[in-house]
């Protein structure tokens, strides 16, 4: 068989090509066909069950994480809303706040107020 001379080829392109074809064909025949062991099928099912249980665990974990994320976003949303309303309440300038504080003292004096001041 020509295969035996793989390294002794004259090296022309066609010859080498034919030699490679013959080698690959012989290789196919020379390779032993492995037989599956008795544990093959149980091994397949063990892998399937393993993956199923890990994906079940993963989905449970994912669901727990989603719930936690939702709860956190609700809490954060509530906190943010409270902060915003208090900020808007205090959002006036210093002068506006001062004016609001002393509005009553800047009002024109009423008769009751004059009487009050006189008594003092």
């Amino acid at each position, binding site marked *: 068989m020509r295969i035996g001379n793989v390294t002794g080829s004259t090296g022309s392109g066609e010859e080498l090509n034919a030699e490679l074809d013959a080698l690959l064909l012989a290789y196919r025949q020379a390779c032993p066909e492995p037989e599956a062991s008795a544990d093959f099928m149980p091994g*397949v099912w063990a892998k399937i069950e393993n993956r199923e249980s890990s994906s079940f665990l993963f989905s449970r974990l994912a669901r727990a994480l989603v719930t936690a994320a939702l709860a956190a976003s609700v809490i954060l949303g509530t906190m943010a809303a409270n902060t915003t309303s208090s900020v808007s309440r205090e959002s006036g300038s210093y002068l506006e706040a001062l004016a609001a504080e002393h509005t009553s003292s800047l009002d024109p004096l009423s008769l009751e107020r004059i009487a009050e001041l006189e008594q003092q």
Partner: protein
Amino acid sequence: MLVEFELIQKARGGDGGAFNQIVTAYRRRILGTISRLIGRPEDVEDVAQEVFMRLYFSLEQLRTPEVFEPWLYRLTVNACYDYLRKSKRRRESRMSDLSEQQVTMADAAAGSRLQTEESEKHRVRDTVNGLLASVSEEDRILLTLKEVEGLSLKEMESIYGVNENALKVRLFRARQRVLKNMRRGE
């Protein structure tokens, strides 16, 4: 096809017995392919189990029976790539395999004719393994599927998801690289 599409349909529907029958029908072929693609006998069974496990979880996506075998081959090739990427010890493993085979050969004190046949087979395996180990994993798997497994370009098209012409170019280049190494070995 080694199995009827009805059997695949049953397996898709969760019938464990039908799935077992599919595995039994294809396991020998898949084990052989894996053994030639990864070249590490002790891991062949493990990779084959991985292939059938992936098949089990992807059966739902199968629509037409014609694509079943190319699909199974694609799963096989992908599992082999994953294995080779993970282990990254192809060259070392090949060397250890050879020494194991040599030990086996030395131990086998059978009849001289059998011994000669076995040593010829061993020499062929040795030569081809050496040639294929000198090119990239992609080239090796491509050439093995086409030249050793005997897949048609059409089948390979559906495995690789590229058209026939692109495959021909890749195969030609892979072959050229092997031939170059053969010339170098002269």
